[in-house]
């Protein structure tokens, strides 16, 4: 077995009719039972290698309109985010950024991965000390990679930390798309076991079945992501006119994106999530036709208990922000359910859209991060 297994680039749906059927007819029209061909398993194996290599997940994202992001000489914001990463597959993440040069100052300006302490994963330095005449013409692209390593699965927290007025306009964190799979560190299947003319036994398929099951059940999409700017690495008292956080003083639920909106409707602000046919189980059983989204919120409520409600088409779940505790992540105890029978572009209240509401018993509730990710029931 070579150390690297090539991954086919092109997607084609599998139609194994010619090599996978349990009967055939002779020219005289007599039915005869047929065995499987090895090529059917070979097709499954190469397709799975493609799925393992070339379906990158997007783990986090953040966008700021340049007019708001360009904070001049004072801002070195830290952005916190979370995502679920149960699929341990040696996968390197790539952080891509659109950035603006700083207006003044000396020394290296850059961004880096922040996992609770400084790391060596960072952008190259950018030391333009000129006043930007045009926020768009001066836009630059940068990136760095984050090695997955042996980090345990579950909900991981990372951060994007900026230094010396490095101004991030947009940030996206995505799996590295691979051309081939390293047999030392990635999941793969060996299509060469299914040689033409070889005996076809069930254990040839077991490797495909087991690794596809892991991919299909663990490698699922993120649903939504928002992260606040923490100026100089500390949470600020949020303002509605910048990205320092979301704040409410309402004692009844209001939509985080428009506090005049108090109820979910077909068009109220929220996140549209694809779910059609993406669940697990027999589609003939209605109870199976759901897909879960797990939600988490980062915030604090200095004076009174805060509540965050995530409302989907079928149910809603609430998160309690402990009064007078520090800034922390709070996970929903149960899942928001999406309906896997609803089309992606359904425009009614049945659309798979998740609205987020918040309220507080006394004082203010501050939110600094919101993340949700798909999980199979």
């Amino acid at each position, binding site marked *: 077995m070579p150390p690297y297994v090539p991954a086919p680039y092109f997607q084609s749906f599998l139609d194994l009719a010619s090599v996978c059927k349990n009967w055939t007819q002779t020219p005289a029209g007599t039915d005869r039972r047929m065995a499987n061909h090895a090529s059917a398993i070979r097709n499954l194996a190469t397709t799975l290698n493609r799925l393992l290599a070339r379906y990158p997940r997007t783990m986090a994202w953040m966008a700021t309109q340049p007019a708001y992001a360009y904070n001049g000489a004072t801002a070195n914001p830290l952005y916190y985010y979370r995502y679920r990463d149960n699929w341990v597959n040696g996968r390197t993440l790539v952080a891509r950024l*659109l950035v603006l040069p700083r207006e003044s100052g000396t020394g290296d300006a850059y961004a880096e991965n922040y996992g609770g302490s400084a790391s060596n994963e960072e952008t190259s330095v950018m030391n333009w000390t000129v006043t930007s005449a045009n926020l768009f013409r001066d*836009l630059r692209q940068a990136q760095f990679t984050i090695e997955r390593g042996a980090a345990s699965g579950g909900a991981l927290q990372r951060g994007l930390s900026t230094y010396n007025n490095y101004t991030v306009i947009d*940030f996206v964190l995505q799996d590295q*798309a691979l051309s081939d799979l390293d047999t030392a560190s990635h999941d793969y299947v060996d299509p060469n076991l299914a040689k033409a003319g070889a005996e076809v036994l*069930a254990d040839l*398929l077991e490797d495909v079945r087991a690794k596809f099951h892991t991919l299909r059940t663990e490698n699922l999409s993120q649903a939504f992501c928002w992260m606040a700017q923490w100026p100089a690495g500390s949470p600020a008292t949020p303002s509605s006119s910048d990205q320092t956080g979301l704040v409410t003083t309402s004692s009844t639920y209001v939509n985080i994106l428009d506090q005049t909106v108090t109820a979910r409707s077909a068009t109220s*602000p929220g*996140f549209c999530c*694809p779910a059609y046919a993406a669940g697990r189980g027999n589609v003939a059983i209605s109870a199976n036709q759901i897909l879960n989204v797990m939600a988490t919120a980062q915030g604090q409520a200095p004076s009174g208990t805060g509540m965050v409600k995530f409302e989907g088409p079928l149910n809603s779940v609430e998160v309690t922000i402990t009064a007078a505790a520090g800034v922390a992540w709070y996970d929903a105890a149960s899942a928001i359910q999406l309906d896997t029978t609803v089309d*992606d572009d359904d425009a009614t209240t049945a659309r798979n859209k998740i609205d987020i509401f918040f309220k507080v018993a006394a004082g203010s509730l501050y939110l600094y991060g919101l993340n949700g990710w798909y999980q199979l029931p």
Partner: protein
Amino acid sequence: MAVTKNDQYCPPSTLETAADDGLSVRTIRELAAAMNNYMAWAGRHKLRGQPFMPHLESPASGTTETLVQPFAPVVIPDGVNTLQFHAGHYLGTGTSVTWKLYLMEWMYWLDEAFDSAALSPSYSTALWSSTSGTHDIEDGTIAVVKGVHDYVWPFITAENAASSRAYITTLDIYPAAA
């Protein structure tokens, strides 16, 4: 066996895939359908599920098409030819604002005052309008245009009608269903 792709995933049993056991057509058929389902539906990872807070704003004045928000490049899996998007938006003042979502094969970085002549030979666009002060969601699709690499650079422009201004609250983008 025809191509099937809109069945939910039913994990194939391990009972008949042990060493030296017979291999039924059914097991292969289930796995093929499950992989098709992953490519067509379940494996469509969101490229964005993005709230804008503060809301994305069209220009404070002017009636020319203007670059509003550029996005960092994302990898689109090969074979994905169309993206589905949902944009939450509303009109703040005036009569109408036209939004355009672009996909380009490299970064547009020329100017805030949008110049379509600077678009690369290959780009795609989808447009919608904000004409109401109440929240609305645009459900649309946009063709994927890629160069020799796997990346696309999305960006959004806005064009105000006279004395108009509008806002975007959310943007969700992911591969369209096959």
